């Protein structure tokens, strides 16, 4: 039986874990490798690292983090942040990441999705979509949500899947960091138009939120704030899910 996944999302700046609200206003929290190892021991299903400064500096820091993580963490690792070319993706995958998450790079150059997918396989190519609710619809945000487009998220999700994306990391800019729950309508809208797995991100605050996301079609959830600030534990999220008949990997 397939299990729904609980993923930890770690935003990094240089060699430090950061956390923000609405993707701005960073705070430094410590060594990302310590956090991911802790989550691994607690039974996390996957780790996502987003390199917040990749486009400004080189990638040496994130590559070091990936290498160190793979020494002790034996679950899939996805890395995103500033991936603009096939060479960028290759560099990240060769450092030990299992999948790359691409946002702005793909939005500005959709052919990149096809290139990465053809070279490494769909399963390595995660399209990261940041959604901002504006004028009655969700539009695609990019450049760490500093810019909003007038392209609809639904339209972009369909296009990205057709181009070869294997998975969607769907983040609600409005809910991110608020711990007030996922944008359920957004998840439902995207899950109903694509046949590839969707990871819901942005807004997790209590264990019910996982169940709600799954009920809307999400295959996984990504959590940052609640885990990094010790508001909830992975075993708690799991046992609650099991009590609501959501299939998860047992602790």
């Amino acid at each position, binding site marked *: 039986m397939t299990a729904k996944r609980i993923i930890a999302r770690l935003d990094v700046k240089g060699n430090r874990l950061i956390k923000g609200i609405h993707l701005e206003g960073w705070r430094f929290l410590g060594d990302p490798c310590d956090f991911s190892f802790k989550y691994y021991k607690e039974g996390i299903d996957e780790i996502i690292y987003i390199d917040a400064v990749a486009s400004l500096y080189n990638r040496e820091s994130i590559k070091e983090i990936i290498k160190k993580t*793979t020494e002790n963490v*034996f679950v899939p690792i996805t890395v995103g942040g500033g991936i603009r070319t096939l060479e960028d993706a290759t560099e990240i995958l060769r450092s030990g990441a299992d999948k790359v998450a691409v946002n702005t790079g793909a939005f500005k150059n959709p052919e990149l999705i096809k290139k990465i997918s053809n070279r490494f396989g769909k399963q390595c190519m995660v399209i990261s979509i940041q959604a901002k609710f504006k004028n009655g619809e969700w539009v695609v945000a990019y450049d760490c949500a500093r810019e909003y487009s007038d392209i609809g998220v639904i339209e972009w999700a369909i296009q990205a899947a057709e181009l070869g994306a294997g998975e969607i990391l769907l983040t609600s800019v409005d809910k991110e960091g608020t711990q007030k729950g996922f944008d359920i309508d957004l998840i439902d809208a995207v899950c109903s138009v694509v046949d*590839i*797995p969707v990871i819901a991100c942005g807004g997790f605050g209590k264990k019910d939120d996982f169940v709600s996301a799954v009920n809307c079609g999400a295959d996984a959830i990504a959590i940052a704030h609640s885990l990094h600030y010790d508001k909830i534990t992975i075993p708690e999220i799991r046992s609650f899910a099991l009590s609501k008949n959501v299939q998860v990997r047992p602790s």
Partner: protein
Amino acid sequence: MKKVYIIDYGMSNLLSIYRAIEKVSGVPILIDKPNNIAHWDYLVLPGVGAFPDGMSELKKRGFDEAIIEHSKTGKPFLGICLGMQLMLSCSEELEPTKGINLIEGEVKAIPKVGLHGKKIKVPHMSWNTITMNNEFSSYPHFQIEHKPYVYFVHSYCAQTEIKHTTYSYTSIDGFSFSSIINKDNLWGMQFHPEKSGAEGLQLLSSFLEL
């Protein structure tokens, strides 16, 4: 000291399997040329990507023949993910392509619809359980009676018609495929043991006890 030779044919994330072998006290050695086949005590063929590319890269380096040579020595061999698929007779991925044919079987696409018409999301990118085929219960090498969860990420799979060579099967919404295959010293795992946490590491550890 258990030396584990890992084939580097440009088709995979080698660091993960390298680290995992280290973690279970093996000594991983990457090989990109088939020299000294007789030295390969444990041979691992990892792999991520498409079947036709995989076969072409193996052939380019002479590994297809080397793997067949090795299989006659009786020493343990493990194919992982694409590596497992390449062990079979052929695949329909992208274009019909012949495999190494160590174990008879075909690689086919995971269907988009399961039992009762339920939609199956492809790639099958998920933790899922492996269930042992009863045919092997009298001499189980891998202890999987508890149906552990392991991590799968694939769009193609081996079918369970291969009864005597399917060590474990896995299902997605009623559709079944072979998750571990076996013939003598030859083993294949469709999932990634190096990405399956403690359960996966235990399977790798058991492989090194062969």
